[in-house]
């Protein structure tokens, strides 16, 4: 019974994902396909925490939103808007809702980040990682500075795609 229900949920999820891709005009695009320059990348940002996003500031999005934690061994996660909507992404995870920010793949590549598809059944569809921003327990000062520069650059090219505080 348990297995049947799980399988049913999986099929429904796959159907949902297919319909989403169909609506976007890419029904047979694979999550493993290389990321196109014109694609939009999404990143989840915790809400209700001014360390990440502080609406009272002139620049609400903080660079900490792009800082890896100890689970980001392959790099920080992004998602492709080709496979998941900002709104859906904003409600995925352990402590939803999240803000979702959007970045153009071309601009992300221009600042020196390589974004690699890494589909993960435990993550929303279209999962990507950036190995230049991975967690290292003991970073040298030079590595830390390089990572901080990338975080500042990402903050500066990101725009808000989903605001859970404005959603109804």
């Amino acid at each position, binding site marked *: 019974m348990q297995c049947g229900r799980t399988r049913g949920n999986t099929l429904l999820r796959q159907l949902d994902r297919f319909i989403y891709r169909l609506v976007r005009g890419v029904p047979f695009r694979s999550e493993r396909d290389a990321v196109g320059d014109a694609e939009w990348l999404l990143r989840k940002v915790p809400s209700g*925490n001014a360390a990440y996003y502080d609406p009272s500031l002139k620049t609400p999005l*903080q660079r*900490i939103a792009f*800082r890896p*934690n100890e689970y980001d061994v392959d790099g920080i996660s992004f998602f492709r808007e080709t496979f998941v909507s900002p709104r859906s992404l904003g409600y995925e995870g*352990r402590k939803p809702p999240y803000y979702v920010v959007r970045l153009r793949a071309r601009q992300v590549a221009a600042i020196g980040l390589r974004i690699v598809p890494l589909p993960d059944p435990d993550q929303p569809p279209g999962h990507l990682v950036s190995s230049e921003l991975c967690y290292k327990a003991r970073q040298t*000062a030079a590595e830390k500075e390089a990572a901080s*520069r990338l975080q500042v650059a990402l903050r500066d090219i990101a725009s808000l795609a989903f605001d859970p505080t404005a959603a109804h």
Partner: protein
Amino acid sequence: MSSDEWRLGKQLAEEWVLSANRLNDFDRLVDDWDGLGATAPDQDVVESAKIFLSLKRKQDPESPPSRVLAAPDGSIVFEWQSGSKIVEVEIDAPGRANYMLEEPGKSPRFWTGRF
């Protein structure tokens, strides 16, 4: 001391206390406090941040930090904002402070210091 000076002094003192209280709040953070796998700051990093804050208060009592934040890698960040200029100090190990200065139109500057 005029009443304005007294009020300003009181306000600054309150802001320093608020920053210190924020640090006390970090004692209660647990791993995954952000729902994305963040590490809670180690007790020795929190204690070091408290020492840093008290040193800054002695050095420059008129400039309490604008914000005190926990970062997802377990470090603690103090931020001073003046217009579009931002100074960020990150305590990631006892006695170590990583500085970042951001000014409009300039590339951010970074340096590390001990305290």
